[in-house]
């Protein structure tokens, strides 16, 4: 039981980070039907921006988090403007290939500027842990959980309660109808990229702190995992991405804890395949055939 609780807690903290990244995938997919393969690299950039800012200024966790989030959101908007906007009317595969290209570009540029070796992320959060009858929770895990929950509540508020959030949903449902209401679709898409990239940037800083080590290719695996989390929950559906991220994190931790960490990725894929067979639109998705 103690072992189970322990893995559950490890799984939830890791999963909440996957969820933060998955949200960006799912929001961008929802609004322009693009699988933004460069999204994992935005998360990596968030880690590096946090690293550079914290080591250069010596500032603490909150300023580092905010700077990483803001810078990432600007980068996300610029990438959308330069790489994706000109392809708005192109085929989906063209945009997808472009996204893969952007991903390589970001990775190679970071390797060029920061070097290919891993860097040690500064310790921005207090070390130490709580021991609740044998189950160990580190302060870092608590921080990660608190920060991700706050960010998700914030996101949920923006999306459901504000005018721009309403516009985001309207554009996702029917772009031309939103245009007929006077929504500036380009601005709304930019805003979506800004939001998603800010969350990825936050995830980058949190992971930097959690694992203490960052490198230019660190976005690859979590990027794929987060993408799976988004599909898991039903791509385009925000609560689905949160649920999917947590589920994947917990699955991985349990498999590592009880079986072997060698199998954790395989198990995640198997579950994904089962879900897609049983419920093709994802856990929270509605099984409607896509309009063409």
């Amino acid at each position, binding site marked *: 039981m103690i072992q189970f609780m322990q893995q559950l807690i490890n799984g939830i903290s890791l999963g909440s980070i996957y969820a933060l990244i998955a949200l960006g995938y799912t929001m961008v997919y929802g609004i322009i039907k693009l699988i933004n393969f460069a999204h994992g690299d935005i998360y990596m950039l968030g880690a590096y921006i946090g690293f550079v800012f914290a080591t250069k200024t010596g500032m603490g966790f909150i300023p580092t988090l905010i700077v990483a989030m803001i810078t990432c959101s600007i980068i996300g908007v610029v990438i959308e403007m330069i790489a994706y906007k000109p392809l708005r009317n192109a085929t989906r595969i063209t945009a997808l290939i472009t996204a893969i290209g952007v991903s390589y570009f970001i990775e190679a540029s970071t390797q060029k500027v920061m070097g290919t070796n891993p860097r040690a992320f500064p310790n921005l959060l207090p070390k130490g842990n709580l021991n609740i009858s044998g189950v160990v929770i580190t302060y870092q895990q608590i921080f990660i959980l608190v920060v991700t929950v706050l960010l998700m509540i914030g996101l949920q508020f923006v999306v459901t309660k504000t005018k721009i959030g*309403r516009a985001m949903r309207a554009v996702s449902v029917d772009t031309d109808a*939103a245009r007929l*209401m006077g929504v500036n679709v380009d601005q709304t898409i930019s805003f979506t990229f800004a939001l998603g990239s800010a969350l990825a940037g936050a995830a980058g800083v949190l992971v930097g702190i959690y694992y203490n080590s960052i490198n230019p290719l660190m976005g690859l695996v979590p990027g794929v995992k987060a993408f799976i989390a988004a599909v898991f929950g039903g791509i385009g559906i925000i609560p689905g991405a949160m649920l999917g991220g947590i589920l994947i994190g917990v699955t991985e931790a349990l498999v590592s804890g009880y079986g072997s960490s060698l199998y954790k990725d395989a198990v995640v894929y198997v579950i994904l395949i089962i879900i897609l067979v049983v419920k093709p639109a994802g856990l929270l998705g509605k099984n409607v055939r896509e309009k063409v």
Partner: protein
Amino acid sequence: MLKIEDLNVHYGVIHALKGVSLEVKQGEIVSLIGANGAGKTTLLHSISGIIKSTSGSIIFEDNDITKRSAKDIVSYGVTQVPEGRRIFKGMSVEENLYMGAYLRSDKDGIHKDLESVFERFPRLKERIKQNAETLSGGEQQMLAMGRALMARPKILLLDEPSMGLSPLLVKEIFKIIIDINKQGTTILLVEQNAKMALGIANHAYVLENGKIVLSGLGHELANSPDVKKAYLGG
């Protein structure tokens, strides 16, 4: 109020509108009838700035809106109720209505207009928090019209509002259109239901294969042998 001159629209090689000219005067109801594929929706989308024309001009109250953005056109007072309603699924009735007021920031005015939409369509008020997707066809049409009214349009463009509705509901919708017009909103109505559309129109146009082939007073067209033969079932 709205003046379209020699408008041409292409979809790639398809020449969808071929030199269309049309005028809507303030306070009027103007109906545009035509068969499937005649180009009616294309014309409304060109006015709304969703489709760009290849040549010709669209003037609304001294503003040349031919090349303006959809957003500017809405802010000038031109709002469309699109074909097939196109309400925002997954959003509540209330949120759909607020989307109509997207460009407005006068909170009090928006609130007042919301109340008057509910007065006009009491069924929407009963379903205010309901997912718009779950409304019936007629209710969705009312929502689409209410949503457009939330923009406080000077001219309302209606694309086949009677599509798929029972005869009783069609009557109700047309009564509402007349009423909206009486309260000062100019109407450009696109319809396949020629009888009803000509019946309420001051002026009317017949569009065939992208060309205006007939125009005149509503009752004139309703009595014209050509129109009777082609659109009124003999």
